[in-house]
């Protein structure tokens, strides 16, 4: 009913809405917004499909056998699992949520959440293609992102509190005789509805920043490495690019040294406005408000250290 009313109202207001799009900035922002939705929805649904498979066919007992019992060991193992899942950040959120539902320790699920979009083969190949003159960028990105995932995971085993994630997320689907395919279908449907709206919210924010952030932010930063690192870390959060595309954007900012661009590549897949919205919707606001700043600080530190180590300087 309410949906009908919304659609009817929008149809009636179509004229003024289209008129609003006459402004080039609004039109560009609207197109960027739709592009983010069209690009990210398939990855989100891929994540919910994996989540559905986990819910329907992978019992908590199986996961317990695969993962080490000690969280401190489970964190790097879960992080390494991210190496083989060719998804981007939108896909890993529903999967991590379902891992928690199937009894995986939160710290390990979060290590997977951070590792999967950052260090999978597709992203590493894209990075190599985007930086043909600097192959060391691939190793630096792998190192920085892996350190971020494991570092945040280990920190969570020390400082994490059970109350950060709602208890309802920790229960696998009840075995009430529902056929497995129906559990699968309902999990996919439910996860898309739950997360989709937040993905759209994140897409709105990212589109707005994409048209509003002036290029002058990155011009003239070349001589100021510390400032450049700060600006690029902030840009990674605001622009919320897919991890498959961010290397090309970093490559296009060729006036900057390698170190700030590496920070952009390590921070982006770990924390950005789209991801924070998705995580708030999936794991609850209490979790997202703590996880985002923690991840941001760890990611910037790991990226700077990895860069200094691999480039032997600011690059």
């Amino acid at each position: 009913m309410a949906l009908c009313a919304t659609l009817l109202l929008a149809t009636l207001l179509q004229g003024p809405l289209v008129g609003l799009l006459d402004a080039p900035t609004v039109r560009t922002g609207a197109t960027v917004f739709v592009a983010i939705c069209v690009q990210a929805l398939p990855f989100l649904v891929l994540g919910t499909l994996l989540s559905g498979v986990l819910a329907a066919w992978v019992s908590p007992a199986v996961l317990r056998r695969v993962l080490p019992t000690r969280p401190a060991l489970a964190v790097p193992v879960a992080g390494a699992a991210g190496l083989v899942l060719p998804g981007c950040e939108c896909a890993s959120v529903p999967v991590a949520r379902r891992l928690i539902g199937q009894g995986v320790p939160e710290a390990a699920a979060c290590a997977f959440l951070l590792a999967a979009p950052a260090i999978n083969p597709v992203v590493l190949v894209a990075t190599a293609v985007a930086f043909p003159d600097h192959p060391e960028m691939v190793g630096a990105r792998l190192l920085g992102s892996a350190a971020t995932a494991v570092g945040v995971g280990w920190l969570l085993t020390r400082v994490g509190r059970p109350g950060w994630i709602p208890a309802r997320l920790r229960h696998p689907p009840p075995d009430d005789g529902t056929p497995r395919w129906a559990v699968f279908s309902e999990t996919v449907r439910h996860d898309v509805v739950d997360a989709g709206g937040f993905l759209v919210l994140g897409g709105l924010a990212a589109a707005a920043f994409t048209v509003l952030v002036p290029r002058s932010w990155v011009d003239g930063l070349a001589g100021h490495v510390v400032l450049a690192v700060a600006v690029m870390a902030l840009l990674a959060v605001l622009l919320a690019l897919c991890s498959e595309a961010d290397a090309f954007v970093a490559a296009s900012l060729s006036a900057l040294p390698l170190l700030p661009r590496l920070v952009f590549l390590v921070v982006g897949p770990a924390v950005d406005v789209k991801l924070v919205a998705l995580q708030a919707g999936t794991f609850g606001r209490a979790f997202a408000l703590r996880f985002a700043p923690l991840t941001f600080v760890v990611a910037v530190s790991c990226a700077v250290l990895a860069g200094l180590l691999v480039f032997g300087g600011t690059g």
Partner: protein
Amino acid sequence: MTRDTQHVLLVLVGGVLIKIVLDGSYLRYVRPWSATPVLVVGVVLVAVALVALVRDLRGRSPSTGDHGHDHHPEGRAGPAAWLLVLPVLALLLVVLPALGSGALAGFGARAAPTVATPADEPLPPGEAPALGLLDVVSRTSADPHGPVTEREITVTGFVAPSVATGAGGADGPDLARLVISCCAADASAVRLHLADPSGRLAGVVPGGAEGDRWVTIRGRVVAGTGTPADGHVPTLSVTAWWPIATPDPVYEY
């Protein structure tokens, strides 16, 4: 949001994804390889919504990890789910155009990264072969006196105000195209300066409110341009041009 509304909304989202692939408009937003994933996901969304609808009608209760959880009883979704209406409206009612010169104002103004090209890469055969702007810029970046400067070429783009910075006699506007590597959110610009030694460019001005002005231009790259000195924007000395409709796909990749 009630379960029934969720089902209708998912059918709408899935349906709109299927529609933009079938009518080709998805190329305004993402790269060609996205056709299959977008189509498959559209079908999946419609399918899971229909499965849930049928099972609800037959009185089978939903079963997920959140079964009976506290704050959304009876399978209701939070208010954020309503935001899924936005992309549906944007794609169904307000058919959004592809990015064009409007994107050159913001972050999209930065130059696209060049692709690795051997300095002596020969041009395609034929008279005035058609090259992408990114290809031209990559070739001059590899060698500003290379094969690309030795023959006439044909290039396509929209007319944009000049950002001429260096030498090369760029007295005309720029020819620009947007390059996307994943979706339109990461678009960046690739440009050529247009030099007009024989006065043929009268009427080649940037498009106004009615939309971008797309042209195909024949000419020769001025040797020694497209270097760091001019911001990797080569100069093309124009010998002929003709207007064209917006190309499909509208971006370079």
